[in-house]
């Protein structure tokens, strides 16, 4: 049987071997992304440690919804850097990139929507004004 893990030509773009000069540029990019990922994590932890979910009276902090959205945005930014740079998906052919990303994004967006809609309903059933809990 023919083995297809043996790469003879340079047709497989990302797998192609490169020289030292090229390596310097790639390593520079890697360290830059490392800095960005570390910085985002530090920002997240500082926000998490210093902005409280509730104020002194136990009421919801009015900032918290924005903090939540901020955390989600930062998380997606981190994920994008890992997938596109570290996993080289950004360097693959466009067709392959979308074969991986499109079905996943579509399915997860649907799943999140359906679970949030359903749990909002259950919240109403258990904790709402006309809840089944006495």
């Amino acid at each position, binding site marked *: 049987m023919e083995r297809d893990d043996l790469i003879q030509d340079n047709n497989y773009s990302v797998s192609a*071997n490169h*020289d030292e000069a090229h390596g310097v540029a790639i390593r520079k990019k890697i360290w830059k992304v490392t800095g960005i990922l570390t910085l985002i994590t530090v920002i997240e932890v500082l926000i*998490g440690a210093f902005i409280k979910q509730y*104020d002194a009276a136990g009421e919801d902090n009015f900032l918290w919804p924005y903090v939540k959205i901020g955390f989600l945005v930062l998380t997606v930014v981190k994920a994008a850097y890992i997938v596109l740079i570290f996993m080289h998906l950004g360097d693959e052919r466009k067709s392959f990139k979308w074969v991986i990303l499109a079905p996943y994004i579509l399915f997860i967006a649907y799943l999140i929507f359906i679970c949030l809609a359903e749990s909002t309903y259950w919240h109403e059933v*258990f904790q709402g004004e006309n809840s089944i809990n006495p």
Partner: protein
Amino acid sequence: MAGQSENISRSELWGGNGSPFRISYGKQWMWMFLVSDALTFGGLLTAYGFARHQAPSWPIGEETFNAMPFLGNGYPLLYVALMTFILIVSSVTMVLAVEAGHRLDKKGVVKWLLLTVVGGLFFVGSQGWEWYHFIHGTHYGSILTPEGWAVVDYNTANELILRMGRGLTVTGAEAKALFDGATATMQGANLIENEYAPLVPQYANFFFFITGFHGFHVFSGVVFNFIILVNVIRGVYDKRGHYEMVEKVGLYWHFVDLVWVFVFTFFYLL
């Protein structure tokens, strides 16, 4: 590193005799596996969101996870931030190993891959400590006072503090009265009850299952990386002329880091 295959005509790309994606079979199916694995984690985290969104209350991350090894309590999120940093760094050493592989630099691959294995072991160990602490619980546990469940704590002056949830604390004589009126206690966490959220036992179940499933992935990743490291040292890929196997386990390893980014957000930050 990209671009060599950008100028290929459509008929040549899709006409057979090679992958239209210009990617090797093994790497393509590693990606397919990662998509399916990502769906599993996506499903687990969405289920977590479902349970959390309908629950009456949920523990606050920086109050539940505020301990450091050897230092005790009072360091919100610091330890898990350290764990996250270790995993990111081990992802970086992995991508450096892949880069060294593209230059057929065997010594470089061995160095960076070894560091990746060490980073992975550190992370698994940290998770073990985190689990131990989570199961063991805080020093004093939780009590059921007439005003609901409260986590018992003492400040540096040895005065009683009751954490009533929603960031509220009770101290002094009022705390003493509530303490004396307590009718039940709970300490630590297991699959049936947990002191962090006495009213939502699912909290600990989700914590154990999702971080456990992730920890299992990290452990398998360390094993895979180690096997590939042994192959690199034996010169298997030198003989083959390329280090694509390093790249394939690298994809898996980055994926483990990727999942942790989300687990970190949903369990500790939000």
